[in-house]
């Protein structure tokens, strides 16, 4: 059950060479790639789409409603993408498919692998759990102020000792830090001292 099932249609597709991290086997499936219990993918090369503009629509219709996640994996292998991609986008959007684009066979293969591998993975890596050590949290917060970079964070930290001191610093004190120019001083100061709500 932990293999990607590949439709016989895909025989000879060079993409298969690039599925290396996950086992795969040919099988009788409606979709091109069966990635899990309720997720599947269709593969479409844009070049092929240009030749057979209706292909995608018929394939999607075949799928019926048995899958929760229906991916249209679009391999972008033409130079002039805007028009064909528009068509593909529209078709997949209106027929409840999620469009993913890859620019190389490696990339397309990787999408298939990843979706399979991550089948049961929780979403914490995209939920913003970042490094929890002090410095990266501080950097994370301070860099919301535009143009403040990591070096500045170190400078501010060493100069003022703690975040509350930084937040309470006067403009002059900020200006004294090497590498922090007029604009940054102003931005920092405004961020700390302007009220959250500017309502009159």
């Amino acid at each position, binding site marked *: 059950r932990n293999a990607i099932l590949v439709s016989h249609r895909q025989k000879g597709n060079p993409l298969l060479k690039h599925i290396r991290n996950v086992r795969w086997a040919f099988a009788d499936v409606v979709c091109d790639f069966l990635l899990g219990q309720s997720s599947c993918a269709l593969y479409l090369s844009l070049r092929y789409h240009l030749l057979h503009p209706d292909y995608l629509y018929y394939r999607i219709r075949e799928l019926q409603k048995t899958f929760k996640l229906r991916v249209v994996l679009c391999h972008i292998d033409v130079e002039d993408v805007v028009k064909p991609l528009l068509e593909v986008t529209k078709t997949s959007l209106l027929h409840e498919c999620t469009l993913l684009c890859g620019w*190389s066979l490696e990339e397309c293969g990787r999408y298939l692998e990843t979706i399979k591998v991550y089948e049961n993975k929780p979403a914490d890596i995209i939920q913003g759990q970042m490094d929890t050590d002090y410095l990266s949290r501080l950097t*994370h917060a301070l860099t919301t102020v535009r143009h403040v970079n990591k*070096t500045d964070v170190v400078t501010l930290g060493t100069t003022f000792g*703690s975040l509350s001191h930084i937040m309470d610093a006067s403009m002059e004190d900020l*200006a004294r830090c090497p590498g922090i120019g007029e604009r940054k001083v102003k931005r920092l100061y405004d961020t700390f001292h302007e*009220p959250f709500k500017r309502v009159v």
Partner: protein
Amino acid sequence: MVQFHEHMISDLIEEPPNGSGLVVLSSGLALSKLISSLLLLHSPSQGTLLLLSPPSSSSLKSQVLHYNNHTIGEISADLPAHQRLSLYSSGSAFFITARILIVDLLTSKIPTSSIAGIFLLTAHSLSETSTEAFIVRILRSLNKNAYVRAFSDKPQSMVSGFAKAERTMKCLYIKRLHLWPRFQVYVSQELEKDPPDVVDIRVPMTKLMVGIQKAIIEVMDACLKEMRKTNKVDVDDLTVENGLFKSFDEIVRRQLDPIWHTLGKKTKQLVSDLKTLRKLLDYLDRYDAVTYLKYLDTLRVSESFRSVWIFAESSYKIFEYAKKRVYRFVKSDGTKWIGPSKISTGKKRKLKGGNDNEEAGGTSSSHTNISIVLDEVLEEAPKWKVLREVLEEIEEERRKQASTTEELLVGGGEDDSGIVLVACKDERSCMQLEECITNGPQKVMREEWEKYLLGKIELRDLHTRYKKKPKDPKGFGILDGVVPISPAKNVEPSSINKQEHDALVAAASEIRNRVKNDDVGNDPQPHVNSKGGGKGKGKGKGKARNKKGPTNANSGRIKDNRSNKIKKSSGDESDSENEADPSVAGGAWEATCQDASIDKGVLRKHTEAADATGSGTAKPLPPVHFYALESGQPILDILKPSVIVVYHPNMTFVREIEVHKAENPSKKLKVYFLFYEDSTEARKFEASIRRENGAFESLIRQKSMMMIPVDQDGYCLGLNSSVELQATPSQNSLTRKAGGRKEVEKEMQVIVDMREFMSSLPNVLHQKGMRIIPVTLEVGDYILSPLICVERKSIQDLFMSFTSGRLYHQVETMVRYYRIPVLLIEFSQDKSFSFQSASDIGDDVTPNNIISKLSLLVLHFPRLRVIWSRSLHATAEIFASLKANQDEPDETKAIRVGVPSEEGIVEDDVRAENYNTSAVEFLRRLPGVNDSNYRAIMDGCKSLSELALLPVERLSELMGGQKAARTLRDFLDAKYPTLL
């Protein structure tokens, strides 16, 4: 106003309609004066005049305000809608930001017929898709008589890219381009008629400075060579000379941007390294030796493991020399410690091993009492001395003059103001120079040095107290030198590093002890006090400055207050203060010196000299005003100085001086330039002039073969024209399908979030003929239909909001409220259409790859649709085709979606403007703060600085929980972990 300004104005105003045009002039030719004179010509009967200024050009704005005696109002989002309306029709001139104006135009809150015209103050930052162009297009379609005047004093940025001037003019519907370079006949005639006296002083740099400069340039060269090797960039532009300028980054970025996502880490690093190096070079001239060293230290800590350049051979020299400018090590028997210099020639990798070998000797020697002693070098910036000499010379001349024509002085005094202005690049140098002049350079250096050492020792204390694990042990061997905290855990404590470090710490603790002594020894020095005479206040200050530690912050504040006062107060007041200070402070300083008995001969000599002059005659130096070029005040017109010392040469300021002189031909004006001999500073100055001239030449060429369409008047503008263009090609396909039957044209509507007006998509959508309805959306960026909600992400955004987790939450809410939630991934036209090259993909599934993140997102939100768009225009097309069979979206419904019910009040539509967005974002990133409590915090305290002071009890009240409050409080108060 100068005569050439009159020429400019008359040229501009003649042009139809009502004098539209694009004016490009050399920087420093008083654009603000030009604009304010134009404003004076404006009369309310013509209608309202709007000045569009991006917030970044606030100095220009403040200057314009200054020349108009602050009579120009400002329309901001704080004003309620009806008040804005009355202002729009009032007929006077207003500043306004593009975002408010476009929103008001789109919601037709502006009576367009009462608009006389608009001024665009930064034409160089415009493009076809920018909001300003959008504004002009709408305005023109509604009011054909309004004029559009665009200005720019940055010709260099007007020539970047292909035919930028021409394209800018087209998108603003402007027909005429006016060029006013410095070498234009009228301009140069007038400015050179009666030029000010100029004294050009070339100051030689010290040997070490030259060394550093050379090393930096070497490293830069090496980096550039590396860049060339990547074969990704055009080699011609990559010269060290170009590397000195900020615009160099632009050149590189412009070439690399289309393929930026396909670049390897190394190339990206090289680009940012070059930027760092440029900064280093710049700071070399501007900062004193100690601060420079400090900056290098922080740089090393924050960058060490990523940077390429830090590993380069020559960059080692940078650190070495920078250190030598501040201190060196001497064996206690007086011979110079040769260890460090030997190391500097060796390979760094080897060095570690070498260290170990040497160690045996090192330890024994230190045990046998030949320990290393720190010898302070504290090199002053050579310009300091020269500046002092210049000021003395000025004073001498003045006194001579005074003695010969005594009566005249009274009369002439007013005209001649006698003010000496020193112009530096930034506020920081101003403060430092001022201290230098009042207290003598040695003292300033010493103070910086003490601060530096104290910083170090504080860090060490922290280390021992908190028992922090040593950070980054890998970088340690390479970094050698000053990275002094070799923590106690280090098994071989007596390496050279250690010895150096010990010496540093010893020096630091000595200072600290001395500070304590100072406090004690304060009282038994009455005779110094008497010397200070009645000026108790001044002396107190001098004293406070010598104390370190607890009083430090305090004294700093006093100083600042004073410097501010001097800058602002008129002549006499600052006179007396300056007069008082040197002698008093000098005296006090001398006393403490003796007390602490660590003084060096040089130091004492200086203070004595200062004392002698101070007590002997009235004043050794003239009153001096310091001015930071960055602050952008019209300082010349405020102060009307008679002598100007240009400490950091800058082309714009030179021009300003010229203009000022031309405006006041009767006045005598003497200008001193201080250049470092053979420095990048001088090269930069010359190159900036060359570059500007080059830019103008190219503009002139462009102007001669510019093609501007005739209908620039805007007669067939607006929605119709663009829709018609759109319709013709599509008609062909229609003939087949529906026998050429013309479809009934219905206007498409798109609801757009206010915040999205920063981007260009609304503009492009409008060009496509859609109606844009700006509102504040809680969920999504664009609402295409009652079902379709789009969250737009540019590539950079996408990566960032994946890491921050924002995207996840945005998608979560979209999925909750809309049938068809859409993530739009928008690539930029001039960047490559791909995430990464095939070779970057790697062999394994890694969680940090964008592919993995996107897959995960898709897995968790199977209903999410993804749109991949090549460019803005492609997006617009996709939107149009998606909307084809859908109903139009409902504005009022869209606004209500996702707004938390507890703030049930109907929101004003300019909500986004009412928040200090960066502060809110900052707040939300603090630990302990989450989606559910940040609103309460914002209600409970006014600003972040206030938050910083709240006790934990109050916080837990606001945040609804002990734990979260504790987390936040701890984070706020946590001592910064030391990496140094």
